[in-house]
């Protein structure tokens, strides 16, 4: 609390810009002010120990994912049948799994699937991690529904919200189980599951923001100018609601990684040879009683640290932004 008093005026302004709804419609922003805003955001981040820790954890995994080919000495599927189920050693820093695959390589390439690339099928890999795509899809559908619902009101609002309420009241695990068990295990289906589960939450958030923003003058102005519905929804309202949505999205990436791990653990994640963290835990679990805990310990730690990192980061950001409001 004491720290906040020393902060300069401009940081306060930048914070409300990032996190609150922008009070002013986009005023002329030069390249310079953008840069200083970025710097201020970082300053706010680093002023909270929790958020800094979170940022470090997240950045660690992002770098591991980016640099996976350069910081590992084995391929994630290379089997060393002479050395299965080994503890950490010089040649295998984290040990090996039951087929003698290097756990560090599998962890690093597993981070790629979560954060950097998504395997659509065996040949096609698209950039953007599986968790990221899941959240993006949820954001897209949720935001569209929320915008229409909040802006239009009346019976479209009533129908959309009642349906989403019904969806939200279904236990999340049930949705995951039924969707993925029925569709089969693949990255695309995991994305679909994450998107379906995430959509109602995003829609609610965006709707509540829209209800507030649609009364603003610049929305009236756009209506008077005769702009199309799509323009008003996506160019006027959505950009002005982006602060809370970004924080929510960050938490959602955490949930998505959580969900990916859980699905993998239940045997509903990526198909076998791919280094999916959850599946690694599930497989390694069988060998705990045989005296080799490493194969399940490391991926559990990886998921835990990444999810905790994202939550600390989002939490820190939200707390800092709340202090100024």
């Amino acid at each position, binding site marked *: 609390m004491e720290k906040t008093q020393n902060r300069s005026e401009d940081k306060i302004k930048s914070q409300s810009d990032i996190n609150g709804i922008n009070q002013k419609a986009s005023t002329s922003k030069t390249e310079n002010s953008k840069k200083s805003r970025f710097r201020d955001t970082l300053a706010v981040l680093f002023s909270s120990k929790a958020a800094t820790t979170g940022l470090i954890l997240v950045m660690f995994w992002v770098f591991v994912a980016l640099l996976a080919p350069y910081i590992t000495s084995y391929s994630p599927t290379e089997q060393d049948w002479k050395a299965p189920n080994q503890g950490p050693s010089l040649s295998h820093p984290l040990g090996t799994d039951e087929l003698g695959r290097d756990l560090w390589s599998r962890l690093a390439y597993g981070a790629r699937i979560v954060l950097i690339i998504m395997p659509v099928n065996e040949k096609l890999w698209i950039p953007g991690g599986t968790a990221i795509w899941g959240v993006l899809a949820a954001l897209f559908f949720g935001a569209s529904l929320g915008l229409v619902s909040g802006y239009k009101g009346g019976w479209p609002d009533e129908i959309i919200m009642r349906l989403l309420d019904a969806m939200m009241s279904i*236990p999340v695990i049930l949705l995951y*189980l*039924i969707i993925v068990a*029925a569709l089969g295990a693949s990255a695309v289906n995991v994305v679909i599951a994450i998107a379906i589960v995430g959509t109602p939450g995003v829609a609610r958030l965006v709707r509540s923001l829209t209800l507030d923003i649609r009364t603003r003058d610049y929305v009236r102005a756009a209506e008077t100018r005769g702009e199309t519905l799509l323009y008003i929804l996506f160019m006027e309202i959505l950009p002005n609601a982006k602060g809370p949505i970004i924080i929510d999205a960050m938490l959602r990436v955490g949930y998505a990684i959580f969900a990916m*791990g859980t699905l993998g653990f239940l045997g509903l994640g990526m198909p076998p040879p791919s280094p999916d963290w959850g599946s690694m*835990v599930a497989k390694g679990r069988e060998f705990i009683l045989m005296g080799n*805990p490493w194969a399940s310990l490391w991926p559990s730690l990886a998921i*835990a640290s990444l*999810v905790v990192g994202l*939550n600390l980061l989002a939490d820190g950001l939200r707390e800092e932004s709340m202090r100024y409001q």
Partner: protein
Amino acid sequence: MAKFIIRRFFLLVLTMFLVSIAVFMIVESSPGNVAKNVLGAFITPEQEASFLAQQGLDKPLLQRYWFWLMGSDRTAARKSGLELELIETEAGFQEWWAKGKDNTLMRWDIEGDDLTVYVKDSDGKITSRKDNQRWSDAKDGSQIFWGIDRSNHAVLWVKGSANEVWTFVVGTGWIKSTGGPQSYIPLKKGFLRGDFGVSLRTGRPVGKSLFIRLRNSVVLAGIAFVVVMPLALMLGMVAGINEGSFKDRFLSISGMIFSVIPEFATGIFLILIMSHWLELVPGASVFGEKAPWQRPDMLILPVLTLTLIELGYVLRITRASMAEVMRSAYIRTAFLKGLPFWQVVLRHAAKNALIAPITVIMLHVNWLMGGIVIVEVVFGYPGLGQYLLDSALYKDVNAIEAGTMIMVLLAVGTQLFADILYTFLNPRIRYS
């Protein structure tokens, strides 16, 4: 208030209805089929078709849904012109019989072209005799009979047809017989009349196995609840009273960390520490025929896992609510009156601060179920979640539907209960 409850109750029914349809459609449209899942990948197409027909899975989707929802006995009774009755035998099996004159019960079997009727009279004795006068003429000239067979189907027999029937008997393997029925209707009372149907995976009534699984899950959740609630409310209040202090930050950050780590990771950590390295408690919950409370040592780790996960969540809500109350004017007044610190906290603050957590926890049942499913899988605990996962992997539609309906009912029901409870705890709230 009454209007509100009725509206919400209507929404509950609507939700369950929509979910049940959605589950049927998803299971229907998904790849893979239940025959291969249950009987293995190497069954022949004839065996597969025979299995699907016997389970009634060759019927159109809409009819299957109707049978699941409302039961098939009325349709079967109309087709056969017989009065049907469901009885429970002394061994605990459910059997469908056709009702004859003077309270005798009848079922049929076919051998070549001969119908055999099995008659069970009122004192339970079963006699069999030839019963060929049942055949009636169909439009295309063949002789047919709609009757009840000896494995709870209403079936259509056609005289002289050589339909092959494959039945799988555990321990023996496939048995092939000819002269089988043209069409099967598996008899059931339907979901709305309290019959969940028969599990395709185990062949046993879903209701029976589900009840035991549900009981086990409720035991686990109940113990976790009893452990978590006092602890979390107490710690949350401690954190909320000293808002911003080191104690507060430590409690809320560590609570947050524990609540966001996936359940299976927490479970694995606990198994490694408590069972693998310290060798204090068993790392799995294998009960066999025993009930969970007969092996309390096996409950320790599952309960501990659930506790860690739920603790943080409840703690943070209590903390926020407590912190807000502590800032309010009436608490300041109480302090200024000179009341002792603990009296203010316990008598004035706690009363108002606990309203929010209690209801929010109810809403949290949704997430708690997810936690329980994972914890059950981690520890091999024979609960509802494990049952549902297995059923989903097998595409055992009756079991999935039953498990889903119970979970939705529990989740939506507790939400409704929480809303009603809230009006009693907080008279300022009125639903209209």
